[in-house]
């Protein structure tokens, strides 16, 4: 086992990519630490499956290198990389029994019979299919088939990493929780590097220590769930993580002041003068409703009660702005303003977060 390093990696499915859009993966350099539990998060078509297939060796990148530790694996086959992968839709060998399905990867590697039997028993226990081992795989439910696929992914002990490509899509919600918890548990017990592709933020945030967010063929941010929440590096991260996502309002930034809808808002930091599309991003958790003249003019459209808090939906000018009001706090009937908490506000220039300039902060 070793860390997995992607070095200046990029990929295109076209033979002669010329334009920016031709690239399914834009150049990236990324390190996956050994034994980490990663989630690869993004909407469909953003290139996450491509990235996964490059790591497992099913796909050869157009440019760049894949390193396991200091060993260059770019040209090596899936077999030589020794990686396990579970796919979105269940892949089972219909004509085999559940037992043979689970034993298949081990037998192909020529493991002695008694070790195979021991591993299969262990994995069957893990996926809760011990009493079904002698059934034919054909005719099982999609749930059961996907559990077999997961089991086949986990049956080999010596793998460098286990990759999951949206493995719980076909599983019903109750089972999802259980299987995810088991995966997490498995990670704790065996310490395999695990990369879990999903477009569901809950799934990503509950499974992973580190979340890698992809957007349009790029890795836009990699970090802990907390970091993604506190300081989204890209508007997509802000929008994609959180429920509801981060509010974004077009703003003119001048030093430590933001101008929105003719209102001047003080910021916690200075940013200098910014050229391009500038926006102020702030999560609904850090907005307060108010009345009177202070803050941004706000129109409430509706209020949703989701149990432990309420979501107020409305808009500032043309921008949709949501506010989360904790349980027990009253919502004034005549609320017509929102007040941002400057410490949690971020400035975005052409969708990328702008780091506050130290100079002005000092000033």
């Amino acid at each position, binding site marked *: 086992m070793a860390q997995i390093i992607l070095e200046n990696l990029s990929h295109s*499915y076209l033979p002669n990519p010329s334009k920016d859009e031709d690239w399914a993966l834009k150049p990236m350099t990324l390190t996956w630490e050994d034994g980490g539990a990663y989630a690869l998060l993004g909407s469909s078509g953003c290139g996450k*499956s*491509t990235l996964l*297939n490059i790591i497992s060796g*099913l*796909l050869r990148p157009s440019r760049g290198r894949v390193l396991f530790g200091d060993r260059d694996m770019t040209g090596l086959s899936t077999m030589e990389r020794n990686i396990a992968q579970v796919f979105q839709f269940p892949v089972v060998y219909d004509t085999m029994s559940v037992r043979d399905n689970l034993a298949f990867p081990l037998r192909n590697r020529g493991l002695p019979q008694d070790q195979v039997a021991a591993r299969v028993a262990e994995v069957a226990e893990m996926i809760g299919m011990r009493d079904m081992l002698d059934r034919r795989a054909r005719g099982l439910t999609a749930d059961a088939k996907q559990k077999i696929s997961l089991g086949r992914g986990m049956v080999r002990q010596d793998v460098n990493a286990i990759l999951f490509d949206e493995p719980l899509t076909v599983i019903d919600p109750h089972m999802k929780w259980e299987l995810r918890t088991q995966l997490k548990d498995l990670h704790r017990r065996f310490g395999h590097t695990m990369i879990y592709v999903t477009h569901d933020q809950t799934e990503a945030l509950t499974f992973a220590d580190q979340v890698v967010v992809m957007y349009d063929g790029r890795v836009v941010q990699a970090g802990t769930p907390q970091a993604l929440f506190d300081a989204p590096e890209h508007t997509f991260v802000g929008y994609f993580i959180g429920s509801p996502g981060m509010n974004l309002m077009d703003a003119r930034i001048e030093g430590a002041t933001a101008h929105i809808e003719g209102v001047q808002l003080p910021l916690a930091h200075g940013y200098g003068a910014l050229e391009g599309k500038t926006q102020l991003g702030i999560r609904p958790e850090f907005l307060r409703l108010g009345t009177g003249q202070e803050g941004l003019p706000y129109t409430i459209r509706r209020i949703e009660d989701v149990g432990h808090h309420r979501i107020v939906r409305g808009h500032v000018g043309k921008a949709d702005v949501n506010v989360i009001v904790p349980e027990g706090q009253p919502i004034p009937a005549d609320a017509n303003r929102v007040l941002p908490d400057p410490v949690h506000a971020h400035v975005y220039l052409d969708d990328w977060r702008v780091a506050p300039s130290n100079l002005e902060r000092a000033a």
Partner: protein
Amino acid sequence: MMAVVAETKGRGAALVMALYLLFLMLPIYWLLNMSLKTNTEILGAFSLWPKNPTLANYRTILTDPSWYMGYVNSLTYVVMNTVISITVALPAAYAFSRYRFIGDKHLFFWLLTNRMAPAAVFALPFFQLYSSIGLFDTHIAVALAHCLFNVPLAVWILEGFMSGVPREIDETAYIDGYSFPRFFVKIFMPLIASGIGVAAFFCFMFSWVELLLSRTLTSVNAKPIAATMTRTVSASGLDWGVLAAAGILTIIPGALVIWFVRNYIAKGFALGRV
């Protein structure tokens, strides 16, 4: 991602396909080669290609009504058969794919057994049947006779395609106030258009290639091209050039049909059941 990830087939596969296609094409090429030679050249020195290519054989066929009417006859009964088969098979296939009714399974199986009936068994009874009702040597007689194996096949293919259309579509249409015939023609048939195409292709194919029945049921007016060929062989015996040219001309309609359905061939051959 699909194509790239899927196993890239190597040179071995290309070689296998090249050899197989060569095996398929060589006899046809040989026929083409002969059709462009004169009889003297065919029987004279052996050559892999015509030394003095001539279209004389084709001219013979295309200017002689006893030859070219064979094509007209064949195409006439083939088209008639295809239309009849599809027309009667459509409602029946719908019934099998949508409803259960008394005797449905037996009926379906009995229909399929007709596909297993050897033409040789039916040749003589057909001859007597159609003679007795005065249809001997007509196009419709051959078209009806070919229904024996084409109707079951069409029902079977169409049933496969129709079962792939969710029944909710029918129900929605009825709720929207469509009558059955209007629903069937306006909504359902467009949905299974490729299935109809595939079924028509197979009806055309089996009617076009069959000879035993079509020859037995005709003498002059509806004589198929294939029969014209066999008689010419036995009569003049050795007119190889014309025989080859006639053969090549029988391949052309099939080739055209294949060209039109080339994108559906794979699915079509699986009869919509994959």
